[in-house]
């Protein structure tokens, strides 16, 4: 029990569009243990991003239960959810979502600002993380001066800023060419090897196959739960 990081029971998410209802998630049951590397695959519109947003405490479910590290997330206030996002979760988005007016270094510092890490420590850690993803020389560049692969590496460094347990990556290679894509996948695998729990969302079977477990999702339901044998 102690080892379960994510516990999802009967989770639904319904978007109401006027008269119409979209059941983006329709009765999801999912357990993810600490240190796992799970990929969630499914066609576009199957509900992957919706699931990730709820796991990441960015969005709230319509019904069902979601426990993160044993905590019932429905009992948390907005501020507590923000604290969770800040310290426990690192997001990597398909479109990077870097702040354009800031340098790579400043982008990586951002989560630490919200956590209240002192300036000097913050700077040192951001430099260390950028060095780790191989961007030592590009620290003072802005996102528009970086290639897609480099931007995604900045985003990964940012996701690691507050040393979260959980890394959520939504189609991290979706906007990249295959070479940068495989570089990013290499970094993500290394993160998992170092102990981070990784949930990777993708519609690409080849990418999904690099995880240790694949969860297939269709029309908001889980189809199968398959363990990849290396």
């Amino acid at each position, binding site marked *: 029990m102690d080892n379960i990081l994510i516990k999802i029971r009967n989770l639904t998410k319904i978007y109401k569009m006027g008269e119409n209802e979209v059941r983006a998630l329709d009765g999801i049951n999912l357990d993810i243990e600490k240190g796992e590397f799970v990929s969630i695959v499914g066609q576009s519109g199957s509900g992957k991003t919706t699931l990730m*947003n709820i796991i*990441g405490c*960015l*969005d709230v479910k319509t019904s069902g239960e979601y426990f993160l590290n044993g905590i019932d997330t429905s009992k948390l206030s*907005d*501020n507590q959810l*923000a*604290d969770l*996002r*800040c*310290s426990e979760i690192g*997001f990597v*988005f398909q479109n990077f*979502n*870097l*702040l354009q*007016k800031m340098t790579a270094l400043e982008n990586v510092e*951002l*989560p630490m*600002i*919200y*956590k*209240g890490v002192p300036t000097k420590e913050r700077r040192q850690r951001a430099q260390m993380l950028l060095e780790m993803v191989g961007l030592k020389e590009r620290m003072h560049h802005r996102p528009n001066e970086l290639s897609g692969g480099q931007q995604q590496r900045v985003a990964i460094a*940012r996701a690691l800023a*507050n040393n979260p347990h959980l890394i959520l990556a939504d189609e991290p290679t979706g906007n990249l060419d295959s070479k940068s894509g495989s570089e990013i996948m290499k970094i993500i695998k290394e993160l998992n090897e170092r102990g981070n729990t990784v949930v990777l969302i993708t519609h690409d079977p080849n990418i999904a196959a690099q995880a240790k477990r694949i969860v297939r999702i269709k029309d908001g339901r889980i189809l199968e739960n398959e363990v990849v044998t290396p």
Partner: protein
Amino acid sequence: MRYVEALKIAIRSILSNKMRSFLTMLGIIIGVTAVIALVSIGQGSTRSVTSQIQSMGSNLIMVNVMGRGGESSLTYDQAIVLKDSNFIAAISPVISTSVTAMYGNNSVDNTTVNGVNGDYQSIRDIQVAAGRFILPMDDEGRNRVAVLGSNVARELFGFTDPIGKTIKLNGQNFTVVGILSQKGSSIAGSDDDSIFIPLKTMFYFAKNRDIRQIYIEATSPDTVELAKNEINSKLLTIFKGDTNAFRIIDQSQILSTVNSVTATLSLLLGGIAGISLLVGGIGIMNIMLVSVTERTREIGIRKALGAKKKDILLQFIIESLTLSGLGGIVGIIVGYVLSMVLGSAMNINAKPSLSTVLISFSFSVIVGLFFGVYPANKAANLNPIEALRYE
């Protein structure tokens, strides 16, 4: 998040769009400038008017006689006995008429000639530039002497020294014995265009002994009220209880009347300027709303990375406070310079007071806060998912 970080973000955002930030601040700059300049000029003119009124003479009491029925004026004796009082230092009845003054070929039409006695100089604090003023002996001797206001002297004599020269007032000869100092125009009236002759000489010159105006100096500021009461009861006896037959005014009454007028005026000017500050605030709100919309995605990212509502709120409020505060500071500088320039052009001391500066600055900051809260609140309440999806 600490305030320092919020301030850094605000400054960065202001700098990243300099032209827009400047235009936004312009509203506040103009507002603060207007408040400071208008209030300072209002206060400056009040001070100048006050000092003008005080220069009419200290402890001054003026009596105007309108009369009652057949008795439309006082006789000289009735007027001069008012001096039999412990509270009155000096008294001069005045009779005025209008004449044509001539010296050689130079003439001045419609000049006011005042018949006054020897007390008049001290009552009105009159400064003599050359020669002397009317003396008691001139009055007793009904001397045909005249003291000229500075403008009259210049128009009649040009560069010639007038002292000892003979001028003609309506054809009658008078010897010039003194010239008054230039006083400049003033709301209290100016003697620059007047001529003074002895009162008793005036009786014969104007063929008129009716006293309708008396200038009185009380012994001290404390006795002004007592003197007024005494004069009032004496005149009531003469005019058989008719309070409308005469009017007694002292300097503090004039001062308070004028002050209440100028205070109202200053308030009005300040209010109008305040409205422009308010309009500046609406400009800030407008730009902040645009900025929130433009930065929806940024807000979504910040929230995903762990920013709380209050972090976003603080970021945008500090941004609008910085805009309004900077605008306020620039407005203070421009307003200060403008007040000094306008003040020297209007010949008044319009140096802005510290309280004017502080009040208008705090008002600009309050405006920034007030109009910044709504956009900031809007930003803080954005749904992170929708904000992240925003293109």
